[in-house]
């Protein structure tokens, strides 16, 4: 996840690890077709195959929300690690002043 080899803020990477952990099921479950490619149990007339995929949309949203709040914090830590103020205030290093590259 990091651009630079230097890792001062380890809590940023642990936050990112948690974000990946949250978002992975939202990618893997829809692609794991064998899991839901069946008729039963039905729900309100809908075969399992259909209602489970609708449920997956809700699950994905439920996982994305906490990931959003974690990412807000992780972004602030990443900014500090790259020499930017935690929240933009117009004083960050300008384009010419480089970090290590």
């Amino acid at each position, binding site marked *: *996840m990091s*651009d*630079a080899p230097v890792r001062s803020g380890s809590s940023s990477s642990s936050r990112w690890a948690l974000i990946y952990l949250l*978002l992975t099921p*939202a*990618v893997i479950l*829809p*692609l*794991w*077709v*064998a899991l839901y*490619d069946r*008729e039963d149990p*039905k729900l*309100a*007339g*809908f*075969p399992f*195959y*259909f209602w489970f*995929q*609708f449920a*997956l*949309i809700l699950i*994905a*949203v439920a996982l*994305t*929300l906490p*990931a*959003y709040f974690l*990412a*807000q914090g992780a*972004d602030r830590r*990443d*900014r500090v690690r*790259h*020499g*930017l103020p935690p*929240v*933009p*205030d*117009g*004083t*960050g*290093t*300008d*384009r010419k002043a*480089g*970090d*290590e*590259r």
Partner: protein
Amino acid sequence: MIDHVNGVAFGVFIFLFLLVTVLGFAAARWRRATSLDSLDEWGLGGRGFGTFIAWFLIGGDIYTAYTFIAVPATLYAGSAVGFFAVPYTIVVYPLIFLFLPRLWSVSHRHGYVTPADFVQGRYDSRGLALVIALTGILATMPYIALQLVGMQVVLEVMGIGTDSSNWFIKDLPLFLAFIVLAAYTYSSGLRAPALIAFVKDTLIYIVILVAVFYIPSQIGGWDHIFSTVTQGFADFNTENADAIAAGDAAPKAIMPPEPLQWAYASLALGSALALFMYPHSVTGVLSTRSRSVIRRNAALLPAYSFLLGLLALLGFVAIAAGVKVDNPQQSVPQLFEEQFSPWFAGVAFAAIVIGALVPAAIMSIAAANLWTRNVYKAFINRDATPKQEATQSKLTSLLVKFGALVFVLALSKDFAINLQLLGGVWILQTLPAIVIGLYTRWMHRWALFAGWAVGMAYGTWLAYGVKSPVQDHFGGPLVNFPGTETKVYIALIAVIANLIVAVALTFVFRAMKVNEGVDQTRPQDFHADAGDPGVEEELSPEAPAHA
């Protein structure tokens, strides 16, 4: 086909069409731009859209009229993998959540307008940026053409259009709609589709929600619908058992049989990866105000996926309601025509046609921006002023739309659909340069170039070899994965080849110390947000931040 036009439906349709036309022109004055003479203003709507507007804009951009016609059509036709559009639009959002804020930041720091701008800045290669841009234009053109196909289907069902055999007279209504679209896109830029998207999406949500609750209640409920469809498909398969065995007909099914599970998953994954490589989705994302607007939308946009899933099922509803059409794409418009009272059918038809105008506008703007930034400015007029860029883009957007129109009217519709299939394969070949570039500069620019070339050629060749019961070439998106009997989406196979070549050649070029160019970006650029230097709250047109 109906040979008369219902006056009430037509009146409602015309009223809504005129409403969005007025909105489209009025959009030029929306959000107080002092001038539209730069790409940041004309092509990205001032880069200032918040969560709410972005939700409508990106939603209107991704879930196009053609999607709304084609997805239920595949279910109506009994394609076992047609419902992949739903997992596809689930998988795409975590990817957007992770990748696109980085692209947003670096693009704002350096004033990039297109994905190819980023590739140019990152890899210092006009050649690589050029092929990324041309791939984007090539993949977008048939996509715009398909929006017209979607409009054409609705107009046909409404009975609008004359019986003349002359293609120009016959498609005059389509022609008129498109001239109007071209005119307000030209004058208002991205603000026009952003404003129209409000109307479009409100109408679409109302129509679909009414359709999925009202129509099933009229024809016996979902239980009845699913059992009717299952029985109907089983009868079809029994009656056509010989043709299916001979490969002259495809068996019908409501869900994928086991051998097609990988096909289903790979279509979903490949399409999700391709989606945000399309220039028009990048345009939508870059028009937002801040990084968090993108992330919030990754949690909010799945509402559209829910809608798309419901809409897809209308293909089954049409079967159960006894809709009989030769062209499956007419199934849902025909269902609306038969089940709704005329005024609401008019609303539904307007929703789909307006639904075609929004993405067609954004796509033509995106393609025009690629031309202007990565061909015109990079090769023809290197000192172009922001005003010259905007003028160039405006003219190109007209040309792109006119090209798409000629495409659909003069050439065959199947040709547009084949090209759209190829477009998905092609656009995915730009993924290594763009997405990997967001994280590391390890890849060598010429290795990425070679990988792109291999992926394009291999993917096109694979697609050329696919036969279907009706076509000898370009018959579908699936081929056997090399060395197996498992069907997989061509785009995914091609991009794997692309990546293997790119990685292998990177080792070679690095060992040979081939010049890798100067990277314009710095690590911190990928974390910049609104309020940082170079990332103004709303860019003023007098001082565009082009690096």
